[in-house]
């Protein structure tokens, strides 16, 4: 099974690599999506088409997409492989161990999610060698004592530690039954006592799959938003520094150029996000991951919605910032302060996704457009946001995005043709407001 999964990942990655290479060779072939776009939105479509074509050709995009796919594959497959790895543990048996106790040891392994294989050892010396070499995880010597390679701390929660504690209890109890004079059948009946069913008044809090989805999703949204924002910031700066913007603005209006850039990069972004999500879902289904269980799909959908809203909000901010710079060092000076709200939302959300315990401050962050793309999906994953809270936060984000877009378009128009030094925000904002 593991081999099949690894092979499947390799095949997908190789296929994508080949596809990208073929795209590289057919570099002048027009792309279908943008061709459809052009008649719909005119000059904006033309600008967007160029953005899409140039981004898809870029090595950064191709390598970045591959790395993201590999990261997603690892996040999905490794937990499954680890789960599978726990299935098989070997227990060396030195001397005699009665059939009921053997059965009990195997059953004990099953109760902690392991498949226990009993290995009969010739003598203690051979058994110790096997234990040191890791061929067995645990020795049962004469049914009276257990030997492990390394002492187990009380805080150790590894599979081996769990097995050792469980087997220690089970064999001890079995020996006690025997000492009490119970027959083998009676002892077996006691060992296999059925636990009582447990019901609950409240559903379980976010389980592993949801938390994993939230954390992996948060990392993806962070990486992707950061990447797309950087494209916009540097793309606008390069158009200004190369002075091509003068040639472009001799033919189109600033707002058309800005909207085309934002739309084009957005299309590439969502195509990439769509590809990653589709890949994740197909892979999760194929390997039997928990990703599709419980509220995890809802958390995933929420992340996608907020990726769109987050991009829509930040793209204008970064475009306006890019129009105020024309050199790399000016961009670097702006990039850090601009990324602070993203970092705040991201770090806070990662913490809460791990602890499952949001504070009031975090609830507030889920309604602020700069941090909501990270905070709200976490609340959804934790089952702490109702649909109307989600909708209210989204609506607030849309309203703020429209306001930010208007302001950014004004700043862009004022700044993009001003060269020589970095444009100060106060200068352009006062003129836009005026």
């Amino acid at each position, binding site marked *: 099974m593991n081999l099949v999964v690894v092979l499947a990942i390799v095949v997908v990655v190789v296929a994508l690599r080949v596809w990208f290479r073929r795209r590289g060779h057919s570099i002048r072939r027009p792309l279908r999506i943008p061709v459809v776009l052009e008649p719909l939105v005119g000059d904006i479509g033309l600008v967007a088409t160029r953005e899409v074509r*140039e981004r898809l050709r870029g090595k950064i995009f191709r390598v970045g997409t591959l790395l993201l796919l590999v990261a997603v594959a690892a996040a999905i497959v490794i937990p499954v492989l680890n789960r599978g790895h726990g299935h098989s543990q070997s227990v060396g048996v030195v001397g005699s161990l009665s059939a009921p106790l053997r059965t009990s040891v195997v059953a004990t392994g099953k109760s902690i999610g392991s498949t226990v294989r009993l290995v009969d050892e010739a003598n203690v010396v051979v058994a110790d060698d096997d234990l040191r070499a890791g061929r067995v995880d645990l020795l049962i010597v004469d049914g009276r004592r257990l030997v492990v390679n390394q002492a187990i701390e009380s805080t150790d929660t590894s599979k081996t530690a769990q097995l050792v504690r469980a087997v220690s209890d089970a064999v001890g109890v079995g020996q006690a039954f025997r000492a009490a004079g119970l027959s083998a059948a009676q002892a077996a009946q006691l060992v296999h006592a059925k636990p009582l069913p447990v019901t609950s008044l409240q559903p379980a809090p976010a389980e592993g799959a949801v938390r994993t989805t939230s954390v992996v999703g948060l990392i993806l949204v962070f990486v992707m938003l950061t990447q797309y924002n950087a494209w916009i910031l540097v793309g606008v700066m390069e158009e200004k520094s190369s002075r091509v913007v003068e040639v472009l603005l*001799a*033919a189109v209006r600033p707002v058309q150029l800005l909207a085309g850039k934002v739309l084009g990069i957005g299309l590439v972004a969502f195509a990439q996000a769509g590809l990653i999500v589709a890949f994740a879902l197909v892979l999760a289904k194929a390997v039997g991951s928990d990703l599709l269980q419980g509220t995890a799909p809802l958390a995933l959908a929420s992340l996608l919605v907020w990726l769109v809203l987050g991009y829509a909000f930040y793209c204008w901010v970064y475009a306006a910032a890019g129009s105020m710079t024309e050199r790399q060092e000016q961009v670097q000076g702006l990039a850090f302060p601009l990324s602070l709200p993203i970092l705040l939302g991201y770090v806070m959300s990662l913490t809460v996704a791990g602890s499952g315990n949001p504070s009031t401050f975090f609830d507030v962050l889920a309604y602020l457009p700069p941090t909501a793309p990270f905070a709200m999906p976490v609340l959804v994953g934790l089952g702490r946001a109702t649909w109307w809270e989600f909708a209210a936060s989204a609506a607030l984000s849309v309203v703020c995005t429209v306001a930010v877009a208007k302001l950014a378009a004004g700043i862009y128009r004022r700044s993009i043709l001003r060269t020589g030094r970095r444009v100060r925000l106060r200068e352009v904002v006062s003129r836009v407001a005026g």
Partner: protein
Amino acid sequence: MGGPLELDALTRRYGTVTALDDLSFSVRAGQVVGFLGPNGAGKTTAMRAIFGLTDLDAGTVRWNGAPVEQAERRRFGYMPEERGLYPSMLVGEQLQYLGRLHGMRAPDAAVAAKTWLERLGVADRSDSKVDSLSHGNQQRVQLAAALVHEPELLVLDEPLSGLDPVAIDDIGAVLVERAQAGCCVLFSSHQLDLVEHLCEAVTIIDHGRLVVAGTVDDLATSGPCRLVVRVEGDRDASWAHLLGGVSVSEIDRGAVRLVLDRSVDTKAVLQAAMGAGRVTEFTFERRRLSEVFREALG
């Protein structure tokens, strides 16, 4: 006002600096017009104003009598002083893209891009990135970018700077050809000899104001008479300094260039020269553009 392009009372201030000061002039169809002035005179600001790339404090740019809007600008071609192309985009695709932004259909833009690259001698670089081209070839591609949509008005800011003589000839020939095809061509340059050679008319500005405008012929034949006189063995033209109403503007390897007041009789000049030695050259000359330029700027 004369031509389809009219700049009417343009004023642009940057703080305390006045870049354009009530500047007005026009460009006729079918003319190559040289746009001259010292550094900082306001040439680039005026050219940018035609394309709406700078906000005006006052004045209007008109095309065929109507204020210029985006629809008109799409029929204009512009080559900025600081060249502007996407450095990592392929040359051919870049021209097609710019053609399409000026309203061309995709197949027409492809044909036009190919045609202009061939015409400007860079057809073999169609699939190269712009930043891999030499300075001269980038300049050719930049001109092709201004021409690809067959503009009715061509505005070029220093199109000939930094080019070798072959490239200057090629680009100059294209400008003249476009004008002959009915296009308005306005270009700025500090290479006055080239402007005199290429242009039918010139407009000279200084401190954002119009100083001189007219055809090269009119400007060359206006003003005082100019004579070039060469006297064998004479090096310092001392004979000329003795003549009233005559000033020596230049002495170049034995040839003295004289500027004569209208009242001066050229026979008297010839006699004075013959008195100094054997006269080997006595030529009436037109006023050079460089002289017009210097005189205009005082």
